[in-house]
């Protein structure tokens, strides 16, 4: 079967597969809707906070891509691992990080998941195995491969989802990692979020081959294409790969076709020479949340009241997260020198620094 998979990319059917609504129970479907809405509202809040300077640095929004994370994670067990890049707020939330600790991290406060030392691009949680948040394009690919190596080494049956944007596919790290993952049969699923743009560069201007899933053939690795705007399709395709990884320790490359509704980061334009207004509009017309709501309504598992309730819960939660973050204190100056080394050896000088820095 793995061999069949290798032969040609799985053609993703454009619905949740054979069973209606992926054969999921109402509770799970509502949870997924909740997660998508939570991600959307959370980032809208973050955008507001960024606009008034409460959040600094780079801030990359996931708006439009929510179905990818929610669908993919619906195929995971809580103890599975996730490694990803810098567009990761929503992935962090869906993996189980609290909106409070994430928002506080964006604000750079003491109660943030990294005590305010990491910021928007560097979210992590050892509690939920979210090894998150990396800023060097492609840098997380070998890391995710290493997590899968550790899983196999320890004889566990966990898997690791390793996310990347399509532009990261051109990095040497992608090539080196996929070869090792296939050669050593590591339980890792590489999910390429193909939103067609790397900052201002369209994929066709950066790669000589459009179909990313076909690149798996160079490593004799199974691959699949998923509709990243359809949370059920995303879950179905990921589930096949996760099973293969968990049971047979076979890695998979998944291309999730999706759309970025915003600019690359808060400081980049949504459209311009590099992308037409129409393109953005067409993308927004396929809003994954709207699509899912319609699917649920048609399936008769979502009433107006239920939707309203979920949305209100999400709104309240994001409000609370923002207030919590705002009230959380800045990290103390003494934190500057903590977490540089886990062990400050008894002997010798570790910091080549003016001793009085903390005083001045």
């Amino acid at each position, binding site marked *: 079967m793995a061999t069949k998979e290798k032969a040609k990319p799985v053609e993703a059917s454009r619905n949740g597969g054979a069973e209606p609504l992926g054969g999921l129970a109402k509770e799970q479907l509502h949870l997924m809707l909740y997660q998508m809405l939570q991600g959307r509202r959370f980032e809208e809040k973050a955008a507001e906070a960024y606009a008034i300077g409460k959040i*600094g*640095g*780079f801030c990359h929004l996931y708006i439009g891509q929510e179905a990818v994370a929610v669908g993919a994670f619906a195929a995971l067990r809580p103890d599975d691992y996730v490694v990803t890049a810098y567009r990761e707020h929503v992935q962090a939330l869906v993996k189980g990080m609290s909106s409070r600790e994430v928002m506080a991290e964006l604000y*750079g*406060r003491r109660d943030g998941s*990294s005590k*305010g*030392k*990491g*910021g928007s*691009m*560097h979210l992590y949680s050892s509690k939920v195995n979210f090894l998150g948040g*990396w*800023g*060097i*394009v*492609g840098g997380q690919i070998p890391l995710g491969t290493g997590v899968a190596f550790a899983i196999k080494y320890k004889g566990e049956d966990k898997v690791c989802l390793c996310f990347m944007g399509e*532009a*990261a596919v*051109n*990095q*040497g790290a992608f090539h080196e990692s996929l070869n090792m993952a296939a050669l050593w049969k590591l339980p890792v699923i590489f999910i390429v979020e193909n939103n067609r743009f*790397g*900052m*201002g*560069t369209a994929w066709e*201007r*950066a*790669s000589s081959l459009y179909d990313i899933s076909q690149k798996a053939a160079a490593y004799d690795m199974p691959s699949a294409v998923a509709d990243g705007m359809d949370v059920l399709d995303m879950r179905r395709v990921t589930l096949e790969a996760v099973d293969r990884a968990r049971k047979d320790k076979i890695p998979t490359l998944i291309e999730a076709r999706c759309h970025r509704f915003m600019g690359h980061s808060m400081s980049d334009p949504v459209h311009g*020479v*590099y992308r037409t207004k129409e393109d953005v509009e067409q993308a927004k017309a396929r809003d994954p949340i709207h699509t899912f709501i319609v699917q649920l309504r048609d399936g008769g598992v979502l009433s107006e009241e239920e939707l309203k309730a979920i949305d209100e819960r999400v709104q309240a939660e994001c409000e609370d997260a923002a207030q919590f973050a705002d009230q959380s204190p*800045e*990290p103390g*100056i003494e*934190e*500057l*020198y903590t977490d*540089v080394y886990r062990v400050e050896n008894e002997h010798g000088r570790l*910091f*080549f*620094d*003016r001793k*009085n*820095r*903390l005083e*001045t």
Partner: protein
Amino acid sequence: MAVITYREALNQAMSEEMERDPNVFLMGEEVGLYNGAYKVSKGMLEKFGEMRVVDTPITELGFAGLGVGAAMAGLRPCIEFMTHNFAILAWDQIFNSAAKVLYMTGGQYNCPIVFRGPTGAALQLSAQHSQALEASYSHFPGLKVVTPGTPADAKGLLKAAIRDDDPVIVLEAEMLYNLKGEVPDGDDFVIPLGVAEIKREGGDVTILTHGKMIHIALQASQKLEKDGVQAEVVDLRSLRPLDLETITQSIAKTNRAVYLEEGWTYAGIGATIVATLQEESFDDLDAPILRVFQADVPMPYAKGLERAAKPSADRVVDACNRVLYRNER
């Protein structure tokens, strides 16, 4: 003299050199259609076309090496790294190829290439995006390294770098791109590599620095002046070649010095200058040379922590006072 931004100065330098020499081209991420991640190459794609203003895939090692090969085959590439933090992926091609071509070929092939882009910290970009890497480059013979801190220096030094027949690393800064300043007119305004500039004269203490830190040094010198201390600010501008003459002359005058740099000090630029000066200006020095630099930690994200981690005018003032043995602690 026109008043333009540091960004425009770099754009002029590249555009003028590309008009002057058809073998000069610009390559990097987002340099074309997007007009540059920091808009440094604004309008250049339109002006010079796709063959000479080349948008690359995100593949730093690959296009840096491609540039070295193109240089060996007779072109004069100007390679832009979106930031030098990402260039670490390409360091093998810079240190093992570009820096060694001329030597390993016994002089048959030289490598006229420029690797440019911002370095150091901007605002709250955290650890992976805030590294000042000039020391790492200066360590390797075969490379030349410049760090313009003003629009005029940006234009003059980048033009010199593009005209130079050896690999030159040009270290810019996000925080400087909007800085305005007077820049001499004329296509032939070139600042030779290896010439420091005294950005402020003073007889009491010498503040040695480079790159965007010169502005911190100038702030510090103003604070010191209120205190009756006249600091001389020496901007090295070029780290390799290095204008030791100007430095030693200033120290012969002030007998006291402080080195201010943005990056870490272990195996840093300041350490090198200090070690060289204690050897070559030993008798001119009335006090140890103190160094001011980034906290010896990865750059934190939080506003307050980042501020504390960066070198500040207050710290420079404090260091100057200490080499002057004033208000000792």
